[in-house]
């Protein structure tokens, strides 16, 4: 259950950003995602240079936790076409495991592929597909809903 999900294009501009509904300042998340891009770039370039056996394999996939901050953990995922997915998760959310994040990224990637296959979607433009929104909405946690459950 993420708090914010962003899809960033190859040229590092955002294609889609969606935050949890009742967050006060979305701008803070936009900023966090933007700064995390630096870490993403660093990881991509570093895996390119190393020649160890394990590293090149990670190019297409999950980048793992990008950096921990006070309140949030940020996860990244890069595809071969340099489209990046960034997910922000609350630090207090301890139930979320690495595998959960990986599977969420996989679902995001599949949803993104469906969007790209739509002949009416112009590559590089904002994503406004309803199917994609549904997938993302399923992943974004709603603070109010969480309180109902606990």
């Amino acid at each position: 259950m993420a708090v914010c999900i962003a899809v960033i294009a190859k040229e590092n501009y955002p294609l889609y950003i969606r935050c949890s509904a009742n967050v006060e300042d979305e701008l803070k998340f936009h900023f966090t995602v933007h700064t995390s891009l630096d870490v993403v770039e660093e990881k991509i370039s570093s895996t390119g240079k190393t020649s160890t056996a394990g590293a090149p394999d990670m190019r297409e996939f999950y980048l793992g936790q990008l950096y921990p901050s006070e309140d949030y953990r940020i996860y990244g995922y890069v595809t071969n076409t340099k489209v990046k997915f960034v997910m922000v998760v609350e630090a207090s959310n301890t139930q979320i495991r690495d595998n959960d994040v990986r599977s969420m990224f996989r679902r995001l990637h599949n949803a993104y592929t469906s969007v790209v296959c739509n002949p009416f979607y112009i590559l590089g433009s904002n994503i406004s597909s309803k199917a994609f929104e549904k997938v993302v909405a399923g992943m974004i946690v709603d603070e109010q809903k969480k309180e109902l459950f606990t």
Partner: protein
Amino acid sequence: MSKTTGRAFENKKLVGELFTLTYGALVSQLIKDYEKDDEVNKQLDKMGYNIGVRLVEDFMARSNLGKCQDLRETADVIAKVAFKMYLNITPVVTNWSLANDEFSLILENNPLAEFVELPERHSDLSYANVLCGAIRGALEMLQLEVETWFLKDALKGDTATELRVKFIKKLTDALPAGED
């Protein structure tokens, strides 16, 4: 053994996706060229008609079926044999009119429109209009004049896609010269 059959299925699926993407590129290019939805619909229908008049020969050669006795048989053949052969789907034939001269083909998932989401500005577009034209062209070569149109479209919010076929008359004269 299982590996080869699995591979064959995957290959078919990939060819199907290529077909879907090709059709999508075709429709979006037509939109860029003609800009108006009505024009694009007409062009798709014309293209479908040209496909239909040729496809019916291939269909007859492959299926080896004899003449159909009435419209009901024709509808069943279209749904169960033709659609299955070319698109690998089997639409359901329903909604016969009282005079038995109109029927509907209900397509649960249209392979042409996989991944497609119609934007707001093209709400009048009949995306799979080529199917209408193809059925019309094929039946015209078999001496049946029909009218085809879409009643419901999954891309426009309905649950399934419904194609309506209406029988006009049997053609006894020479075949029409063709569309210009």
